[in-house]
């Protein structure tokens, strides 16, 4: 069990109050859908009578929702920048980086443009998709390319990594920079090519229990679970790297 | 006085200026050529068009400030305007329902009225499947069923066949006789006007040109339009005793008059001759034939010349006189067949 809403939090709905001790609400980046769903099941098994509700979406949307008073207990973001929005608003303190994600070059299985290294992407004949700079995978791509001293002219700057991956899967582009996790999740529909510069452009995933969490205890326990070895196992199996 | 109205409306190309008084139970017919403003006058009375100026008072109550739906009127539109989504019965019941009458009772009374206009078989038919005349009868029933204080009829009989027209006309007459409200009827048909109306108001270009009881208007037309309506030749001249001078022709008449006067005679009273006749008729002039057309059993000859006139003669006479357009003939009329009155 845990205490109800803190005095600072505005009155919650009667239903929420009644359910508060046994319900945990986790706002998590969409890229964590599979892993967190699995961890949620583990958590429920370990805390009989507790249900974990997930709200998966774009990190930025989740941050906006939280700053607008969403009843969330835990926030797991796909970039430090979105987490910063929440901490700046005083809604969370001390986020912890729980995983990192590394870029890979994704190419269609038949690799029509014969891409083998980051340098091959500079060839104007090769159609490349990158994420937009505003989203984490785009920021990482820029960092990686800067580190390699290369200039790539992509045909598109995608709004998220899944959209980028779709372009490769359907053969619309010859190569793209995506996360290792996405390559693994695509189950063979794209081939990943690791490249050394990826190490300079690692994206951190921070997690925090929110300070106004209606179920503060459970929130803390969930964060602990994610940070535990058990959590790490699940996450690394999906291609994430331990921090 | 049930209805007193001063209707003034100004449109870019049209001005209506009409004073109207209709007593309880009286039926006033508005006659006039196309575009004279008859429909406009009805729309003003109904509140569908806003008065530029003037007033409308019904039963001592000002009407012009009331919105359409508050005016105790019944209106039949020139093109019926039956609601296409309702059956004939529901069209008729519509007004009753608006007055708050229950559904069953409304339908009962609506059906009664449909029966009165001879359409009990078509109660459940949509307007689209009614013939023109059937639709008009439904429209009439729809306006009458709500017992209006002021009944506005825009050519209620125009689309009816001769037989139905007679029947509906007598129904309408009977209802109008029972009816203690005021009725304003727009029509083109002189017969309808004569049969149904207690008083005629003839308007042309938005202005009243003649007013009076039907028989009087029929006998003493004051404009060409009215004269043609009642089938008379009309002239304006100057009278001196038993003579009236129209253009250059001096007519002898039975009446004794002085000053400006009107002269009328029926086309059937005009006699035509190929050469100058030597008979008793004193009113004689030379005319040119402008046109010949059938007119009922007779032929109507349009005459030009110092004065234009219509003459009705039998087909046999036309053949005998070998009348063809352009030809010159002598026209005469007996003094006893003319009628004169002050202008």
């Amino acid at each position, binding site marked *: 069990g845990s205490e109800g809403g803190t005095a600072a939090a*505005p009155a919650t709905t009667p239903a929420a109050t009644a359910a508060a001790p046994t319900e945990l609400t986790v706002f998590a980046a969409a890229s964590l859908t599979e892993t967190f769903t699995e961890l949620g099941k583990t958590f429920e098994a370990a805390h009989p009578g507790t249900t974990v509700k997930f709200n998966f979406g774009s990190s930025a949307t989740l941050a906006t929702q939280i700053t*607008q008073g969403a009843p969330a207990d835990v926030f797991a973001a796909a970039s430090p920048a979105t987490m910063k929005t929440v901490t700046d608003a005083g809604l969370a303190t001390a986020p912890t980086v729980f995983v990192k994600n590394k870029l890979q070059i994704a190419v269609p299985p038949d690799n029509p443009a014969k891409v083998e290294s980051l340098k091959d992407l500079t060839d104007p004949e090769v159609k490349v998709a990158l994420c937009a700079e505003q989203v984490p995978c785009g920021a990482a791509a820029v960092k990686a390319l800067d580190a390699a001293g290369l200039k790539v002219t992509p045909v598109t700057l995608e709004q998220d990594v*899944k959209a980028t991956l779709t372009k490769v899967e359907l053969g619309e582009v010859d190569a793209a920079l995506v996360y290792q996790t996405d390559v693994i999740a695509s189950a063979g529909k794209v081939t990943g090519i690791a490249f050394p510069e990826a190490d300079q452009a690692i994206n951190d995933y921070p997690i925090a229990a929110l300070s106004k969490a209606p179920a503060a205890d459970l929130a803390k326990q969930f964060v602990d679970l994610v940070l535990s070895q058990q959590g790490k196992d699940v996450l690394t199996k999906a291609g994430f790297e331990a921090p | 006085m049930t209805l007193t109205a001063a209707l003034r409306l100004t449109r870019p190309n049209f001005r209506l200026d009409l004073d109207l008084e209709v007593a309880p139970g009286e039926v006033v017919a508005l006659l006039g050529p196309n575009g004279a403003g008859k429909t406009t006058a009805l729309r003003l009375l109904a509140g569908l068009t806003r008065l530029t100026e003037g007033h409308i008072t019904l039963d001592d109550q000002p009407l012009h400030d009331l919105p*359409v*739906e*508050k005016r105790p009127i019944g209106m039949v539109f020139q093109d019926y305007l039956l609601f296409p989504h309702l059956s004939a019965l529901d069209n008729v019941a519509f*007004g009753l329902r*608006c007055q708050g009458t229950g559904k069953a009772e409304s339908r009962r009374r609506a059906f009664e009225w449909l029966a009165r206009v001879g359409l009990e078989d078509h109660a459940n038919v949509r307007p689209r499947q009614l013939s023109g005349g059937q639709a008009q009868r439904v429209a009439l029933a729809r306006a009458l069923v709500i017992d209006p204080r002021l009944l506005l009829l825009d050519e209620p009989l125009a689309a009816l066949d001769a037989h139905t027209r007679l029947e509906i006309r007598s129904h309408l007459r009977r209802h109008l006789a029972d009816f203690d409200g005021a009725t304003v009827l727009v029509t083109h048909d002189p017969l309808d006007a004569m049969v149904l109306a207690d008083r005629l108001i003839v308007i042309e270009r938005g202005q009243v040109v003649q007013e009076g009881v039907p028989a009087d208007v029929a006998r003493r037309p004051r404009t060409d339009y009215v004269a043609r309506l009642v089938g008379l030749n009309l002239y304006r001249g100057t009278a001196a005793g038993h003579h009236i001078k129209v253009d250059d022709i001096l007519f002898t008449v039975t009446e004794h008059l002085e000053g400006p006067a009107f002269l009328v005679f029926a086309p059937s009273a005009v006699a035509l001759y190929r050469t100058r006749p030597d008979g008793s008729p004193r009113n004689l002039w030379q005319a040119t034939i402008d046109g010949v057309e059938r007119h009922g059993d007779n032929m109507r000859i349009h005459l030009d010349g110092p004065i234009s006139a219509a003459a009705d003669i039998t087909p046999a006479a036309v053949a005998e006189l070998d009348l063809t357009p352009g030809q010159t003939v002598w026209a005469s009329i007996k003094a006893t067949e003319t009628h004169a009155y002050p202008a």
Partner: protein
Amino acid sequence: MAGTGREAVAGRLPWVLVVPAGLGLLFLVLPLAGLLVRAPWATLGERLVEPEVLEALRLSLVTATVATGICLVLGVPLAWCLARLSFPGRRVVRALVTVPLVLPPVVGGVALLLVLGRRGLVGQWLDSAFGITLPFTTAGVVVAEAFVAMPFLVISVEGALRAADLRFEEAAATLGASRWVVFRRVTLPLIAPGIVAGAVLCWARALGEFGATITFAGNFPGQTQTMPLAVYLALETEPEAAIVLSLVLLAVSVIILASLRDRWVNSP
């Protein structure tokens, strides 16, 4: 051979109309063919019995229908006012109605949060006075969908009202019908096809609504996760599943529309 719907003797088909129509249809339908070819039919059955899918489908249908109801109740009168009343600022109001059309849905969701969120302009008052919070509830989904879909209804219905013959309304007024009765018993039935068209657009838009919903109402299975949201999450994990889910949503809506619309449209 094709013929007209009426009794008239059919003339030559106007190819100059039929050819672009065929092209248009092809353009709308071909992508569907692409989806059908690509869909993993093998797993379809298995998907269909997943309780979450059924739950999302049910939620989508319910919220879209309720949202359409709200849009009808508020939107048809709004359309009437725009078409039939003349008041100062009517042009501005008419332009404002189109706002949610142009607003990217995600921004629409943010705007809704700013106004109806727990800390929003109206939302904090709703919360303190009545204890009502809309975000992250099924009611919130309905609000988001209605916000996005209402303009479609208003604009369609206003168009129908303007095209309708005013003289029937005049005839009704002379029979003693107040404006409200005229509206209910004459105007509404006369513009029924326009209202049906508007409601179809509205319902379909609500059914497919994603951005405003996920932003304003979140993405909680069983509560706010409609089919488009489920499709979004499926795209994150298994794109094939997303296609299957979309096809399910499509099939259901097409069946519903095909069975309802023909009845409504043909009735008057």
